[in-house]
């Protein structure tokens, strides 16, 4: 593939342009079960090449899934044509870096027979059904494995390779008891088949679905809330443009002018850590081939840095932080890697709080510009260390900035999200508006 990319690159440079190419390829196997038989079985492979051309300070993009000569020629031609259309952008250039860098996950050869995988996939449904007669369906279940690799080549001579292998399982339990319905799903991802936690996803789905059969609402009022790691990750990631220099450029970052100011509680430090040893997958370089390193975003409440790619760095006359994000068919953006929320000044857990295990509506009920949100949640009410009720049919609302100012650290251990890309000390948010009965 590198030879094909070099051939395409020579077309770009022959046109007196700079450019870079991104190629990705993935192949997957997926299966799911229904009525204790394999109901869907998918075998797929796909590839795509993305072309970015910069000519006379103007940027043009194109992509193609076909890699024959005609399609590749057309992709270059289209990118050149598109570059004629865009406005002059002095900030977007190909990075002056060269050399090869690799980030290829080494995993043992997969020797697990397909019959074993199939049997385990079937268990994602059958075991759940067998463990509780109130399970009325297991609508979401499945096993999947994916091989993925990508290459990056720039006209300045940067070449990177990335390779990954992942296995994933998911299951769900829909339960029905005396006309009341509940559901919960869980998933797990690993780099080898043997590390998949089949029992964990089954038990977690059943545990919460059983409890949610008893769900009741709460009286409307202000509550202290503890989010599960997955819920907290969803909320924090939803507002990732608070750390984005691109959002600042686009006038869409409420923290754009707050560098050096205290923006959240002084008890919190937030670090973007692409190389964290506990992460599911570390990341050595970004989409411009820039090597990554940990970045402190917030230090004891003070905003220290934004995510930068070379474009935002040129615009703000600073250096890239290695957070360029771009897919073969997408324009240049910025995005973070794995987040660590560290804390100090540890307090005891309050006597009464709502533990949120599930939230819905982030894609529509959160305003990424203002930080306000209003979400449907489910969880447990805790009093004096006891789980006293399962809660549903309630919403929480507020503003992320207020949340992160009105927070207490209640533990020292960094707890991981299910996908092992987000790590936080336990936090309690006070005075949260809950709408219920």
């Amino acid at each position: 593939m590198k030879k094909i990319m070099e051939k395409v690159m020579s077309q770009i440079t022959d046109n007196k342009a700079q450019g870079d190419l991104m190629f990705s390829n993935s192949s997957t196997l997926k299966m799911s079960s229904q009525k204790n038989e394999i109901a869907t079985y998918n075998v797929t492979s796909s590839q795509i090449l993305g072309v970015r051309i910069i000519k006379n300070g103007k940027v043009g993009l194109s992509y193609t899934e076909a890699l024959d000569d005609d399609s590749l020629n057309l992709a270059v031609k289209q990118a050149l044509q598109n570059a004629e259309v865009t406005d002059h952008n002095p900030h977007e250039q190909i990075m002056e870096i060269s050399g090869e860098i690799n980030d290829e996950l080494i995993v043992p050869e997969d020797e697990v027979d397909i019959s074993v995988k199939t049997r385990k996939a079937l268990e994602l449904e059958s075991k759940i059904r067998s463990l509780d007669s109130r399970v009325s369906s297991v609508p979401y279940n499945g096993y999947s494995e994916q091989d993925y690799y990508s290459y990056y080549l720039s006209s300045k001579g940067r070449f990177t390779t990335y390779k990954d292998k992942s296995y994933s399982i998911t299951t769900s339990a829909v339960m029905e008891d005396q006309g009341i319905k509940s559901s919960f799903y869980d998933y797990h991802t690993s780099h080898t088949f043997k590390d998949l936690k089949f029992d964990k996803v089954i038990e977690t789905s059943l545990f919460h679905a059983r409890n949610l059969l008893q769900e009741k609402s709460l009286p409307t009022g202000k509550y202290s809330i503890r989010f599960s790691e997955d819920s907290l990750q969803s909320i924090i990631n939803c507002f990732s443009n608070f750390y984005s220099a691109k959002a600042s450029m686009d006038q869409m970052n409420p923290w754009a002018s707050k560098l050096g100011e205290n923006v959240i509680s002084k008890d919190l430090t937030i670090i973007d850590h692409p190389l964290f040893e506990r992460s599911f997958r570390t990341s050595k370089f970004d989409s411009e081939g820039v090597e990554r390193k940990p970045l402190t975003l917030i230090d004891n409440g003070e905003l220290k840095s934004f995510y930068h790619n070379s474009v935002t760095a040129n615009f703000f006359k600073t250096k890239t932080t290695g957070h360029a994000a771009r897919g073969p068919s997408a324009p240049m953006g910025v995005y973070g890697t794995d987040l660590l929320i560290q804390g100090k000044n540890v307090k005891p857990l309050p006597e009464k709080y709502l533990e949120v295990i599930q939230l819905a509506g982030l894609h529509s009920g959160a305003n990424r510009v203002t930080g306000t949100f209003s979400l449907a949640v489910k969880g447990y009410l805790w009093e004096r260390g006891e789980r006293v009720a399962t809660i549903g049919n309630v919403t929480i609302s507020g503003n992320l900035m207020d949340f992160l100012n009105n927070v207490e650290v209640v533990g020292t251990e960094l707890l991981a999200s299910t996908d092992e890309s987000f790590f936080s000390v336990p936090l309690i948010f006070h005075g949260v508006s809950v709408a219920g009965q």
Partner: protein
Amino acid sequence: MQLLPSNVAQDVIAAGLAAGADFVDIFIERTHNDGLVYKNSKIEDCQSGTLFGIGIRLIHGEQALYGYTNSTDREELLRITRLLGARISGPAKNLTLNFENLKYPSIPTLQDREVNTQEKLQFLNKINQRLRNDPKVSQVMLNFTKKKQLIEVYNSEGLRASEERPYIRLFHQLVMKDGNLQTEAFHGPGAIGGWEFIEKLNVEEVCEGLLKQANTTLYASPCPAGKMPVVIDNGFGGVIFHEACGHLLETTSVEKKASVFWDKMGEQIAHSAVTAIDDGTIPGAWGSLSIDDEGMPTQKTTLIENGILKNFIVDRMGEIKTGHKRTGSGRRQSYKFAPASRMRNTFIQSGKHEFGELIDSVSYGIYAKKMGGGSVDPSTGQFNFAVQEAYLIENGKITNPLKGATLIGKGSDILTKISMVGKDLSLMAGMCGSVSGSIPTTVGQPPLKVDEILVGGEA
């Protein structure tokens, strides 16, 4: 137009049948996308690209096996087919196919006139300038997308069908600031068609609506919380039916008994004021299709009539698993997804009430003028929706603007609590994400009054 030679299609289908499949189909797609992002008063990104791929599906009993590739190579297609076929234990079938081109009524689309960049730029500049006349507007983003999807379907029943689908959409987003206050407003009209649709947009009306929405939410008070009546306006208000009920009527949920409506056919599931339609045949509408992605001519399907459940939204697998007849609703984002039962243009039909009557009937509640998005858990029917533009109703009058309103509840409950249906139906374009990817759909309704919904806001 032929994307895959019929002799190759025949070989692939024969290989699937020889492996024991009851049914085989091939979906071939070539899609050309053009995108233009206008931001900071200039064209920031311009990109184009072509997607091409072939999806092969083998059906055996209630089992669906699916594979795809970017290659048209006969051997690669046969390799995938045999790989899938190896999962089947059934007698081999020999069948000689003689494909017949499907003849179907084509849904009229708007003109797809070629437009040069200068003309597009002029149009986008006009919107930008109009919006920026308000000094509080800090950013205007206009995302213009044009897509031409060519699809071809072959199946083991001898069908060959093809369709060219031109899509066009202009997504508007503005950011407004006043001191520390900041807000956004969106509008995203789209259609099956071309530039003619964009030309016909009433720029003044669109801009005025966006500015009003932003100015309203910028200074709005926090929404009160609790259970109360809600009047949901027409157009994108229909997202509530789409999410809370429409998804529950797709056989993708029904066949797994993962929908609260799976055993309710013929029963009263909604207030008698409610009649709901899913119609793939509306000329030019964003969710219209001449044929679905399984090669079946699309149709107009009455889902609920005077509150009684009349039909589900059915694809081929849904028909196999539930026995309900297909409705031309097998849809997918691309060849990367097996088809599934999906909505097209889904709306509640007009009723008899004037808008003022709906508002007059509420002593204390919410007027949801513009809905944001939402989601639903089909298995429990529980939904949540954000309201983008909301107002308080006090003693039959619309009063203060509100922010941060969310509506939550159960689809089955809400349907029975729609007590008044207005006259003025309108439709809005949106994207719907589900098991077979993200597809263009239209939502719509006339203004509705729901007697009670839990409103999430400030306690």
